[in-house]
């Protein structure tokens, strides 16, 4: 079977440098494609589509849009096996964070579209911190499922919710910390620094 033809002229050679400039992305260029990350990956064991080596390779070759719009970049579970074992110390866990950060910025600018639910969850999660200083688990889960309009998922958590409530683990109201304003200040300053 003939392999697909990719014209390098149409790729973005700067993508690799862009990632390398992001915090955590610095070491992407160290990669010599040995495959240790892919064979160590906990997610890859379950979902073969997720392939860290290929993600890095596509990024290095400049396949920017394909990488940033892929649902796969949101799948890393932070197990750090690749991070430990990578001989070149590429730190894929951090590289993928850097790629995600670029994706979010690009999505904000309307340059790409993200289908994955993960950034939304992260946003809801972080919003909870912004509001209360700490995470209000009950509230953020509700908000996430509602925003996704994923009612069946929400209902599937009902038995768990009941059990948690019985165990006294479910907070029906958020607990705001005293330094809430300080935390809000942090958000503001970070936004100013980075453009969240």
């Amino acid at each position, binding site marked *: 079977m003939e392999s697909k033809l990719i014209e390098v002229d149409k790729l973005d050679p700067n993508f690799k440098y862009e990632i390398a400039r992001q915090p955590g992305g610095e070491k992407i260029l160290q990669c010599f494609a040995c495959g240790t990350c892919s064979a160590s990956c906990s997610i890859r064991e379950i979902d073969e589509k997720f392939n860290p080596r290929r993600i890095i390779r596509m990024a290095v070759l400049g396949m920017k849009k394909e990488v940033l719009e892929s649902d796969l970049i949101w799948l890393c579970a932070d197990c750090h*096996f690749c991070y430990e074992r990578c001989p070149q110390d590429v730190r894929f866990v951090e590289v993928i964070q850097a790629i995600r950060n670029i994706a979010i910025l690009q999505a904000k600018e309307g340059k790409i579209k993200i289908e994955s639910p993960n950034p939304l969850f992260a946003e809801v999660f972080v919003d909870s911190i912004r509001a209360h200083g700490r995470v209000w688990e009950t509230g953020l889960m509700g908000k996430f499922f509602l925003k996704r309009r994923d009612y069946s998922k929400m209902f599937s958590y009902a038995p768990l919710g009941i059990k948690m409530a019985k165990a006294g683990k479910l907070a029906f109201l958020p607990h705001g910390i005293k330094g809430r304003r300080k935390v809000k200040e*942090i958000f503001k300053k970070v936004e100013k*620094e980075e453009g969240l």
Partner: protein
Amino acid sequence: MSIGYYPGCSLHSSAKEYDLSTKAVFKSLGIDLKELKDWNCCGALEASSLNPLLSLALCARNLAIAAKDYTEIVIPCPVCRVNMLRVEDEAGKHPQLKAKLEHIIGEKLQLGKVAIKHPLEIIINDIGIDKIKERVKKPLGNLKVAAYYGCLLIRPSRITQFDDPENPRSLSELITVLGAEDLNFPFKTKCCGGALLMTNEDLTFEMTKNILLSAKEIGADCIVTACNMCQMALETLCIKAGAKYNIKLDMPVIYFTELMGLAFGIKDVKGWFKKHLVSPSLIYSKVG
């Protein structure tokens, strides 16, 4: 002797029993855990997904608070602990970042002043396994335990600096000294996928299912863990396994601090066990 205590959000809610058992066990070892004043969320794994600087800044505030009163803090949640340690590492290496973080939180950072430890680390490295042995009142005779380390307790080892990232031994040492049987658990360092529980449930459940089935296969009475995220992910599947896979999975997943409480003869254990979604009460009958 008192040490600063950063529980993190989940120990105040979904991992209440971890919070209670940690404090009780440390108290029985003569260490008072004093909760940091008005701490905030570390940002978990979500803040860094959006913006790594936010994650660092949130943790920096906590570290600044800790540095006012303590030279040592204990963080039972491995996610929170790694996040805090990352601030020390990154800001330590990049003075510009340190300055930026100080500007954001409006306070000075005293890097290196506060030792950031996991309770298991204090028990194994500082208190020592021999001291623990002296404390055991009720050796856990017949209990067969699968020690489960997961990820962020031991990886990335460059940051965590605790135990072996590929072949950890600390929980096993502890379990053995408490008198229980430490099983050879092939999944001890595997990932539970907890980070993706809310967004990619199917993936997480495949991962937790493998872990739980393996523990069952080796004949474990329970899984012992040192991570609230793992505990949550494993228990969640136990509850949902019936609906999801039409199988029964009721493996108790308890914290190492609870196991210590049991062996130390701490009365509150019953109360902690009640908070579990999968009841560990069978452990009682096993231990006697």
